[in-house]
């Protein structure tokens, strides 16, 4: 048993060992896992940036944006992160409250995020609008407004995510709040009849949707682009809502403890520039926040372009999140 164990431990050590050779300069970027997956933007970003910076980019990937913030809170001042990439606007207030971030002091041109987001600590790199994505083969009359969705046929179901455990879930909560204000509980009361189930995360919801369990799911306006470009499948479409769509903006910032702040700022500048921005659409499946080198692929042009964008300030979200979730829980949990 003991020899078996030691062999295993050695084998384990070999397969997970990270080559830790000391390079010239290192930039450690904390991000979410799918950003650095082999199909994500990470590999290309690393390759391109390393050519110009004379440095080495080290990724640390955690599950998602929320986990990213948790990780920083756990590590505190001891964090190795120079740049944190992948928080969204709803997390900004809490991220600032950690006191771990430093103002970027940059004024990039050509950032074109709807809703006019700008912040002294965080810079946007991409965005997406939340949208109801539907299966055009089974749903012939998709909703054309949030009101339509709320008041539509209860037999046509939608899968949504839980605001307690997922960012899209929180997004829908804020969306409904933005449109209905104080009347949000009444809206949820009606929408509830159409909700097939509330999943812990986006993956479960989208999995149920693509299995055909429900003809609608809460996702992003950009979701259809993946199916068109990667799968040549035009079946899934996003519904344009006349009231407007709530936006999710993904941002990055540099830490107060960054080893080489000039390098971190250089990365943020690169991030808002056309080289980085051109990588984003077809690897992260989000809309680029800045100018790309070439026009976007046709599939992106065909996407829903919301005329009105909802975005609450990070402070407002942080101050009300608990109360709004409780309100949602009360309605959704009632028999």
């Amino acid at each position, binding site marked *: *048993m003991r020899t*078996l*164990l030691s062999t*295993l*431990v050695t*084998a*384990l*050590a070999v*397969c*997970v060992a*990270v080559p830790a050779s000391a390079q010239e300069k290192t930039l450690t970027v904390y991000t979410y*896992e*799918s950003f650095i*997956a082999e*199909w*994500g933007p990470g590999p290309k970003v690393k390759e391109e940036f390393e050519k110009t910076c004379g440095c080495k980019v080290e*990724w*640390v990937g*955690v*599950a998602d944006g*929320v*986990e990213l*913030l948790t*990780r920083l*809170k*756990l590590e*505190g001042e001891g964090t190795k992160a120079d740049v944190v990439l992948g928080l969204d606007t709803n997390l900004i207030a*809490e991220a600032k*409250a*950690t006191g771990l971030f430093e103002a970027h002091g940059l004024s990039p041109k050509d950032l074109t995020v709807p809703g006019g987001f700008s912040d002294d600590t965080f810079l946007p790199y991409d965005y997406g609008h939340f949208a109801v994505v539907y299966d055009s083969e089974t749903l012939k009359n998709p909703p054309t407004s949030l009101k339509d969705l709320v008041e539509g046929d209860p*037999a046509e*179901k939608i899968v949504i995510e*839980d605001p*307690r*455990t997922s960012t899209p879930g929180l997004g829908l909560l804020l969306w409904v709040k933005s449109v209905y204000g104080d009347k949000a509980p009444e809206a949820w009361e009606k929408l*509830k009849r159409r909700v097939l*189930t*509330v*999943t*812990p995360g986006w*993956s*479960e919801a*989208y*999995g*149920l949707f693509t*299995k*055909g*369990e*429900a003809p609608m799911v809460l996702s992003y306006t950009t979701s259809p682009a*993946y*199916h068109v470009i*990667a799968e040549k499948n035009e079946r899934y479409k996003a519904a344009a809502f006349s009231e407007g769509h709530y936006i999710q903006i993904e941002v990055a910032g540099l830490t107060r403890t960054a080893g080489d702040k000039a390098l971190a700022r250089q990365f943020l500048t690169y991030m808002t520039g056309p080289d980085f921005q051109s990588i984003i659409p077809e690897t992260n*499946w989000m809309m680029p926040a800045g100018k790309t080198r070439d026009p976007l692929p046709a599939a992106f042009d065909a996407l829903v372009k919301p005329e009105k964008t909802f975005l609450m300030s990070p402070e407002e979200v942080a101050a009300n*999140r608990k109360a709004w979730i*409780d309100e*949602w*829980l009360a309605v*959704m*949990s009632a*028999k």
Partner: protein
Amino acid sequence: MIFARAERRTLDIAGALALGGVLAFVGVATAVLLGHAGSGSGAGAGAGAPLFDAYILRVARFTFLQAALSTLLSVALAIPVARALARQRAFLGRVWILRLSAVPLGLPALVAALGIIEIWGRQGVVNDLLRLAGLQNPVSVYGLTGILIAHVFFNLPLAVRFLVAALERIPAEYWLSSANLGMGGGAVFRLIEWPVIRRVLPGIAGLVFMLCATSFTLVLTLGGGPAATTIEVAIYQALRFDFDPARAVLLAFLQIAVTGLLLFVLSLFGRPQDEGVTAGRAIRRFDGRRRRVTDGLVILAFTLFTAAPLLATLVSGLAADFGRLALDPTLHRALLTSLAISLASASLSLAIALPVVLVPQLAESGAAGPARLIMAGVLPAVGSLILLVPPVVVATGWFLMLRLFGETGRFAPAIVTVINALMALPFVVRVLGPAYRTHLARTARLALSLGITGRRRLVTIDWPALKKPFLTAFAFAMALSLGDLGAVAIFGAEGFVTLPWLLYSRMASYRTADAAGIALILGVLCLLLTLPSTAPDRAPERPGPDA
């Protein structure tokens, strides 16, 4: 007296080590988390909320309601199925039916949920059949029904496997006598089967209850709405969105306290009884012939219920592009890492389980001082309750702790291995415990009187007779570890990728087919794991005097 002096000493030391090790591992993590809360970083909106508000009370009530119902259903259904399987020893494909029972364990909850939906969902097979039968509107399982179906899918096969193992330990002579005496089905159940079932039932029910009480993804996904929320969800919420580690730890304590109470009550029903003596002849079930048709139907229904979602997983898995997956270096690395972790954690789990199983035997055999008695009482409790400590809490605690020693990523494999080993402990103990008890009752005194002790006893007496339970326990532990996402998520990728992690990551980037392919790989791995423990006997099961 069933152990020699040297063996008793070794067991004392091993027991103390196991107990101390487990408590220290969990204790350090919780202490660090509780300490971290004091540093004022709980800036989340949930910080400072009272622990026992109406929300938590409602969540706790639902947690125990659904877990109790799931347990009741799983265990009640398992009894007829296990009896049928034990009676029909030559049933076509019987060994494969038993093998299937380890597969759900190794499937991540997300995969299982999608498999179940393909059968029971609105567009599932069951509703298709109902539509053919003329029903207009689809029957929806979302809600308590869906949760119960999912939990029975996971736990019925487990309970059946444990019960069949218990029934197969009944000496062959009993069946011979019962046939000679012309006992009817009722008498056989009352006099032979029930006493054996009753002894293992509390352990099985306790395990199933814990698994259902800590269920998270299945409950939310199939529960239809936030009315279906478990304490585990609240813990996750406290740790992630609200970042309130102290609250997470307190909720975990609540979970342990209430479930622990229930397990204690359950344990009062399981009285150990005398072991039957056997010459080790092959078991022949003379009562099987009469009931071939009814037993066949029961087994068929059970197999359909368990296999259908697995089959759905298989079918969607086959749509994956295996040519590309086979060449995917990330998948290779994940496969190797997962196998290494699960091998190591299963070995560790077995090593910890041995004293957990044997020290109570030692105490029962009469050679017990107060220290040994306490250890005999505490070890099994710790071995069970560990399942209620959320891995995410332990992992977060250790993350905080290891941060002080630099690069946390380096320690990730070790922490994940230990967490998985502890999670598997309740399974391993339930497989090994009853088997060891029967084995010791039959051989211990004889071995001792012949002076066969220590390592020789392990090799020549124990291993040949207990090979199957050991291999079964090992397979369960490995499957559990293979399918576990839990702790990996805390430490972040940093080159440390397991199969479930890869599955979730592909799923999260629209790569559904890849994810289905990885799920298939996991399922096949779990099935392969069960092969050694269910290989057909060449020699009689227990070498007795006439073997």
